[in-house]
């Protein structure tokens, strides 16, 4: 187990994270309150962005862990333990998500964040009420507040349940050395991947895509998966590098692990681009107004003048794809520590930008604007940063708590030696 010095180091990191997290959350909660009082959706979106960033990382790690189990991958065994620590963030993310779930039941305007929750909300551009929108009427079988809430519980049930069992069985193996635990985890993963893919896809549709209920896209769930796994790989790489520099994983996390994580980051950079571009490409070629408007508001205002989202769109192409793509093509980027950390931080930063681009834009009804609405522009609010830091602080604290409960690496896992001796 750990020595006293290591325990106190982890405890102090956890304590700092908790304090920073609580302060961030208090500021974020103030934003949430002010948004609810003034009927403004933007501070609520800040809260959603903060949650989504950390949720996407946790879900990405849950995906990776199960993929590694299913493929019987031996090399990531020591990394898998760090993923399991990160799973402990999921219940807290759910807890912080519940305020958004309560809005439809306790607020005067249930549709403050997810517009469709209030049928008497006005549609932008003088097209009447949402409840009279044929598209909404068709979709209302699925999009209604009760079913939405039930689904949120189901999805988080899947996330937390899978995380709980995978973590428990792995931690138990440390004590008993029972190989059956690994077999159980592998069997659960082969079912769990389907459950998680379904839950995260439908979750992404519910929580992010339904911000614009009018829109259609069949790629959205895969976009969320691609972005999540990419962010998860970057996070676990940074986590392991810090942990090995501080002595926690010293001598166990080696160059070959870093190299393979880097290769997967490259693969998922391409995959994210492939999915994001395919979504754009299909909608561009089909040219159906119900779909194209989603991209139009991310490019120009109603009058055809480029808006702030155009700049962000270009940033996504050049900085979220081209820069990490070319950087990660080089072998050196994947093995020189500071370079791989720089790319990982870069990817996480632009993952946040990608979330902004997907969650923030929308038509806001305003009688004074030229077409009866204006497009919510890009802006970095204090509440965004507060929510990102706040939720992050709580997540890091939860991870530190978990680190105190288990060995740094799964010492009795039958594959741990293969992982320790992993070479390129």
């Amino acid at each position, binding site marked *: 187990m750990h020595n006293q010095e290591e325990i106190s180091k982890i405890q102090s990191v956890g304590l700092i994270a908790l304090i920073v997290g609580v302060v961030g959350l208090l500021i974020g909660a103030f934003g949430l309150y002010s948004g609810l009082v003034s009927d403004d959706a933007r501070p609520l979106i800040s809260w959603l962005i903060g949650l989504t960033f950390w949720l996407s990382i946790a879900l990405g790690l849950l995906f990776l862990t199960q993929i590694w189990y299913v493929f019987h991958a031996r090399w990531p065994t020591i990394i898998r333990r760090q993923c399991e620590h990160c799973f402990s963030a999921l219940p807290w993310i759910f807890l912080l998500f519940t305020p958004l779930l309560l809005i439809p039941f306790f607020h005067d305007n249930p549709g403050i964040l997810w517009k469709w929750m209030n049928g008497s909300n006005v549609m932008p551009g003088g097209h009447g009420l949402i409840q009279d929108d044929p598209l909404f009427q068709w979709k209302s079988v699925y999009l209604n507040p009760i079913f939405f809430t039930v689904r949120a519980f189901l999805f988080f049930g899947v996330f937390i349940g899978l995380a709980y069992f995978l973590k428990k069985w792995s931690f138990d193996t440390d004590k008993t050395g029972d190989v059956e635990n690994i077999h159980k985890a592998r069997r659960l993963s082969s079912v769990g991947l389907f459950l998680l893919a379904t839950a995260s896809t439908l979750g992404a549709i519910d929580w992010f895509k339904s911000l614009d209920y009018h829109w259609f896209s069949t790629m959205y769930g895969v976009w969320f998966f691609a972005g999540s796994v990419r962010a998860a790989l970057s996070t676990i790489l940074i986590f392991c590098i810090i942990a090995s520099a501080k002595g926690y994983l010293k001598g166990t996390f080696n160059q070959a692990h870093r190299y393979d994580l880097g290769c997967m980051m490259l693969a998922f950079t391409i995959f994210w681009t492939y999915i994001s*571009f395919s979504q754009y490409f299909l909608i*561009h*070629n089909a*040219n159906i107004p119900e779909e194209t408007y989603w991209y139009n508001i991310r490019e120009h205002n109603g009058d055809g003048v480029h808006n702030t989202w155009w700049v962000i769109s270009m940033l996504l192409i050049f900085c979220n794809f081209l820069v990490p793509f070319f950087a990660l093509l080089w*072998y050196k980027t994947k093995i020189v520590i500071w370079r791989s950390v720089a790319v990982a931080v870069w990817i996480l930063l632009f993952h946040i930008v990608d979330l902004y681009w997907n969650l923030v834009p929308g038509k806001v009804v305003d009688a004074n604007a030229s077409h009866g609405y204006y497009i919510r522009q890009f802006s970095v609010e204090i509440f965004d940063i507060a929510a990102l830091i706040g939720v992050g602080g709580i997540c890091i604290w939860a991870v530190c708590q978990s680190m105190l409960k288990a060995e740094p690496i799964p010492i009795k896992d039958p594959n741990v030696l293969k992982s320790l001796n992993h070479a390129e």
Partner: protein
Amino acid sequence: MSEVYAIVASFKNTPDLFHAAEKVRDAGFKKWDTYSSFPVHGMPEAQGQRRSKVPIFTFFGGITGFTLGTAMVWYMNAFDYPLIVGGMPFFSPVFPFPIMYELTILLAAFGTLGGMFITNLLPQHYSPLFNSAQFLEVSGDRLLIIIEAQDKQFDPVETKTFLESIGGFDIEEIED
């Protein structure tokens, strides 16, 4: 014509081969290689080999493919026979992207294959090494180091003694 092409030495086990390789590397030999029927982790470093040059071929293959795809679509759709399809512009980086992307992958793959052949000096139908009975046993359980006569430091007598001093046995000359 019987000229010495190389000197071959066998080694008892993998660690012996590995450490012998490090010594050959440190002695400054350039034209030599190790032979085993299985990959030995860390052997490229022990032999002092630099990383493969194949990725460079891949990269330039990819760049060529991308340029070719873009030029092809532009020539066909916007220059040679402009045609309005579905109200789309004659040329844009969006709709022909699958072509640019597929050609990038195709030529990157060709580049990889070609680069592998070029850097491995393939195809090579004959090598004097085939004359050695020991070399043919490598696919079984032999572990060999072979130093070629073309190496600047090669000396028919001294190289033999050197190989013996680093733990080699069954030392033989291979004739051209």
